[in-house]
């Protein structure tokens, strides 16, 4: 136990990094800023939009994954399923009703989700105008850190994916091929598959944090549930992405041709 401590010090090199302060004076007492009015400006409201649209997209993804698994039943079954999607409710409803509804809902969701994401992203950037010289993570997961860029990757993927399999314009077999053929064509191309796998993994991470985050955002988590929600989020992401990944896997390995 050091009793006396005539510590001495020495000033070493002074300047290491220089950064702009870029802030107003810490006036005393701080100026009262006006709160944002209207509910849409609230960051929590935006988060809720993301959570709800995220959940809608998740529901679609579950259905979509199950639908995709029709490939195992062969080309006919898959094409029938695709055809069925387009004909549900006929003749009472015009063709493509269900599909159009789904498309609209998804489009609105993805736009709203993206709007909220960008808006919160900008808010977060404003909130830390000067970066830390040194910053360590204590708890933060990889998934939570990659939400934004991961989301961008998923967004780009969706665009490409629609051009590829829905409209066929980006497909090797072209828009006139059957859905099944387009699928097999894409999944047999290693470059395309690589992009698919990468995007699916990004989506997996996005959902790993997204499911937990949405539960929090919608106010449904608590201390007791916290662990369970996190375990579920991981399990869900693994199963869902696994379900998607089998398709490129089986096509590439020739199990389904």
């Amino acid at each position, binding site marked *: 136990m*050091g009793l006396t401590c005539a510590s001495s010090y020495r000033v070493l090199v002074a300047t290491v990094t220089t950064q702009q302060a870029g802030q107003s004076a*810490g006036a*005393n007492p701080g100026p009262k800023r006006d709160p944002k009015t209207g509910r849409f400006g609230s960051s929590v409201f935006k988060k809720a939009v993301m959570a709800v649209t995220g959940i809608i997209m998740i529901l679609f993804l579950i259905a979509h994954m199950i639908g995709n698994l029709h490939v195992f039943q062969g080309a006919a079954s898959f094409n029938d399923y695709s055809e069925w999607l387009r004909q549900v409710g006929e003749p009472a409803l015009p063709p493509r009703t269900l599909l159009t509804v789904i498309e609209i809902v998804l489009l609105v969701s993805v736009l709203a989700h993206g709007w909220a994401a960008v808006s919160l992203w900008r808010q977060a950037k404003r909130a830390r105008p000067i970066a830390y010289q040194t910053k360590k993570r204590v708890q933060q997961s990889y998934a939570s850190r990659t939400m934004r860029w991961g989301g961008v990757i998923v967004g780009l993927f969706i665009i490409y994916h629609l051009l590829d399999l829905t409209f066929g314009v980006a497909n090797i077999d072209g828009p006139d091929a059957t859905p099944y053929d387009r699928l097999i064509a894409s999944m047999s191309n290693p470059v395309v598959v690589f992009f698919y796998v990468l995007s699916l993994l990004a989506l997996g991470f996005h959902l790993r944090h997204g499911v937990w985050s949405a539960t929090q955002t919608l106010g449904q988590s608590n201390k007791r549930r916290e662990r369970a929600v996190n375990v579920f989020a991981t399990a869900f992401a693994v199963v869902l992405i696994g379900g998607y990944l089998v398709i490129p896997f089986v096509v590439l390995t020739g199990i389904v041709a």
Partner: protein
Amino acid sequence: MALELFLEGDPIADTKAPTDVPIGERWSERKFRGKLVNPANRRKMTIIVVGTGLAGGAAAATLAEAGYKVKSFWFQDSPRRAHSIAAQGGINAAKNYRNDGDSVHRLFYDTVKGGDFRSREDNVHRLAEISTQIIDQCVAQGVPFAREYGGLLDNRSFGGAQVSRTFYARGQTGQQLLIGAYQAFERQVAAGNIETHSRTEMLDLVVVDGKARGIVVRDLVTGEVTTHVADVVVLGTGGYSNVYYLSTNAKGSNTTAIWRAHKRGAYFANPCYTQIHPTCIPVSGDYQSKLTLMSESLRNDGRVWVPKERGDSRPPQDIPEDERDYYLERKYPAFGNLVPRDIASRQAKNVCDEGRGVGPGGLGVYLDFAEAIERLGRKAVEAKYGNLFDMYARITGEDPYSAPMRIYPAVHYTMGGLWVDYDLQSTIPGLFVIGEANFSDHGANRLGASALMQGLSDGYFVLPNTITDYLSAGPFEKVPADHPAIVEAEEGVKAQVEKFLSINGTRTVASFHRELGRLVWDYCGMERTAEGLRKALDRIPEIRKEFWTNVKVAGDAHTFNQNLEHAARVADFIELAELMCIDALHREESCGGHFRAESQTPEGEALRNDEEFAYVAAWGWTPEGEPPVLHREALEYEYVHLAQRSYK
């Protein structure tokens, strides 16, 4: 007994308590007799409240609710950080929720007796009456007091009281009470009724035509010195334990506001009454900046001892039983380790003075749980004291389960402060003083869990009612910004700041503060003697002189400069220390926290001298070089009979 150290002044007395009615009716009677201010007039009046602790925060919020314009000042960044936040144990109230015989009268009685018969009966009785309203108020604000399974409030007993009347919120009662007051305060800020001035230090009082009319402050961020005027000034600036440098108080706690008001004419009462808490973590080195309180409850199971041999440097485990001195158990077989705070503190000092203290510098005694762990099992000890043990381990790096803790007494609370009457008004009309900053309710010793009670009582209930009597004559004439009193006060403050920066000597402010603290601790601490106090009184003027010629203050006056803040506070501590020693020297008796070695019973108990000293010593300031003037307020005991405290 005429010392050349002070001049005898006229006696003073409280004239506000209506003593013509029985004590239980005096408070309502005073409220009834006091003049009121009608709501339309309140809007026209400005009240300055300095401090946002329990006292200041509660007062500002309540006065703003009543419709006055309140200007609030404090030196931290947020009002929530006032030192009241650190109080741990709890707050007393005569609720008698336990049906164990508590009553307003019993709380009144305990407090007068606990203060060793040196407090004013009227004030203490009012405190006891109001105590119950405080709890109601705090619960309504959302203060999360501890509750029982039935959903009702829990109580504990504290400070040796025979009844369970202490309300608590784990070990963070002060924090929760302060947050309650702070929230009420912020509500009024939002309503536009309180104008806030954070990081702003009061450096002088403006007195115009004999009335307190404003304060001179320094903006700690910009260094700007400005004056704020008002119809009335309220000080809730806390205690001055930091005169000792090392204390359990927050680093920023200071005497500046009340000291400068004192220099403008407010009498300073009983400056030497300080409370020393026996169970604090001892000093570990010269760099030590403050002391940390460990809950007194540890003495329920821990045994206090030191080695029999002086200078025994063996680790505690290697000292056999028969070479240990369990001195409290030896000297006080009836109370053992549970003797009251002042005795436990003094005895620890005695054994250390004998050279038998343990740890660095020989300033510590063991608080040993080995026996308790053996008797109750480690689990049980952990359940009871786990968080305290963890805190100890974090601070000292030692494991209290395997080796005894080391503890030492530390300065904790100051019962002295500005003299106030029953209305909490000082000797300067228009200057009100609340909370620990005044001297009012605790006499020579404060009982546990009663400072929080006093702060909130003053802030929420007393001041807002008594201040109206003074304000009923307002709004007072406007004071122009160029009034000579303002100009003079501002110049004085600016001159002092410039003086500090110009000395450019060789010693830091902190080194003066440490030296002063050590001196006051040695001679005006737990045990005081005429000889020691005279030594201190010889030395303090030397320190002051050296301070003003050899201090080195860094930085400049126009930016955030913590060193400059500290310098101004230390300058005041040096002056206050001198008055404390004079007060301690003139009071040739022992009472409560003031223990004069010359005045003790054969058993070493504090021996009061009621014949000569049953008074409040209210000191008046005289310009430098002149001794201070003593004004005595005689204390009369109508309801509690004077008796010697005994612990045998």
